[in-house]
């Protein structure tokens, strides 16, 4: 049996096979069009109308129009409605025997808009057309993305809440400012005796500036290890600023012993710290106070006094520890 070379079927069959087809005569006038395309166009007379008045040819050439058969036949076409440029089409035009073109169109990326505005239904698409599946996917995707966005918002909220409740400094593993405040509050509320040291690293900024932040972070971690090693497990060691630390030592009101601890810390911190073969040299200045200096010890007051003593150490030439000097009258009333 010979292979069929040409087919003949009526416009009704063509309309079902390709509901978005368009036939033009040699002059570019519309001679027939599919039912879905007709739905999208204004109701007034379409047959005989010039295709160039309705469609804007975007590719292959903006200068040509659909009547330029040589330019558009067999090429992948991109069109838009002149009256509604958001509705785009792509398609393929084939020359017809006896002149003119037949163009099979499908919607471009603006399909959702076209379907919404013109109330298209599944019946407006050829059964082979995957447009409905695409609409399904677009909706499924938006639903999933919506759920993921909600999940992200909830996780972000939980992260912020967790950070607010955290007691650990993430870089060094020491306690943080919040943990320090809780520990100080606990000691002062119950009237416990304790010593407090405010430690500030000397020359840390130079390490950061000359060797970089990675070196700086490494130094801070080593400092944390030294502070932990030089204190008791019942003491609280907190990082309260970039290179500032506070140590609380419960039941330590003996300034001589506290001074020893402070000197040992400084000695250890003055040893060179190595980072990627480079030696980083820092030191520390310490200001200290003890709860027995005060008739009614208060956290803020003690921190501020330790801070004053720290700056006195710095002024005296770094690498030193000094105690806050209480005014004589408060000593009497203690």
């Amino acid at each position, binding site marked *: 049996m010979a292979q069929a070379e040409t087919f003949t079927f009526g416009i009704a069959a063509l309309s079902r096979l390709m509901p978005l087809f368009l036939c033009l005569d040699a002059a570019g006038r519309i001679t027939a069009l599919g039912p879905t395309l007709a739905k999208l166009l204004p109701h007034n007379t379409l047959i005989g109308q010039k295709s160039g008045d309705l469609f804007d040819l975007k590719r292959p050439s903006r200068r040509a129009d659909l009547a330029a058969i040589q330019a558009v036949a067999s090429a992948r076409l991109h069109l838009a409605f002149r009256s509604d440029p958001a509705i785009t089409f792509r398609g393929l035009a084939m020359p017809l025997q006896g002149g003119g073109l037949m163009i099979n169109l499908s919607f471009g990326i603006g399909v959702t808009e076209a379907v919404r505005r013109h109330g298209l239904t599944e019946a407006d698409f050829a059964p082979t057309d995957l447009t409905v599946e695409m609409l399904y996917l677009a*909706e499924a995707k938006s639903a*999933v993305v919506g759920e993921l966005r909600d*999940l992200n918002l909830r996780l972000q909220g939980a992260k912020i809440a967790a950070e607010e409740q955290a007691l650990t400094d993430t870089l060094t593993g020491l306690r943080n400012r919040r943990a320090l405040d809780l520990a100080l509050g606990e000691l002062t509320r119950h009237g416990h005796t304790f010593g407090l040291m405010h430690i500030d690293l000397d020359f840390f900024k130079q390490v950061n500036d000359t060797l970089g932040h990675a070196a700086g972070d490494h130094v801070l971690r080593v400092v944390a290890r030294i502070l932990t090693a030089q204190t008791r497990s019942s003491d609280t060691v907190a990082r309260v600023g970039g290179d500032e630390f506070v140590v609380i030592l419960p039941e330590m009101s003996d300034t001589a012993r506290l001074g020893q601890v402070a000197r040992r810390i400084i000695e250890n911190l003055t040893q060179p710290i190595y980072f990627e073969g480079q030696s980083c040299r820092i030191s520390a200045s310490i200001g200290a106070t003890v709860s027995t200096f005060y008739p009614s010890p208060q956290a803020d007051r003690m921190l501020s006094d330790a801070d004053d003593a720290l700056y006195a150490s710095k002024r005296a030439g770094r690498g030193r520890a000094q105690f806050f000097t209480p005014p004589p009258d408060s000593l009497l009333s203690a």
Partner: protein
Amino acid sequence: MHGLINRSIQCFLRDTYGAAIWDHVAREARLGFDSFEPMLNYDPVLTEAVVQAASVILGRPRETLLEDLGTYLVSHQNLEPLRRLLRFGGVGFVDFLHSLEDLPERGRLALPDLDLPNLGMTEQGDGNFVISVSGLFPGIGHVIVGLLRAMADDYGALALLDHRGQSEEAEQVAVQLLDQRFAAGRRFDLAQAAV
């Protein structure tokens, strides 16, 4: 079990019986948290614990509870997106029934790790269909009964649904379609209204 499924059960209990009942179920089922995340996966043991706890607390048989869950999935306004996705299955109710076999694949198109029940459809003539349902959890066939009843309403079709019990590893659901165009049904526009 996918969080979406657990979350649907949670929302069904919350929207139907109130937040206090859900909290009670979550405690009774010993979830250890107060809400399922729809985009995470959970041990199937938890799903089973929730279904059992809800049945006990509400004093309702598992079967009717699951059937109500199926109806809820299609008819509650909070789940309009799901109803729409199901309606993409077909132009009419019969079309929709035929699309049920593609349901797991359609689900995976949206979410690759989403496991939905396997549905097999046999057309027996005279508007009679048998759907075999397996997967997820025992009683899933009752969820499908509720869901199909609500979908028939949605399409405006008049159908009788019946759970025929278990055979060959699957629960059997019988559908008797009396009138495909019984009522107007609910509106379905292919493209979602712009928000």
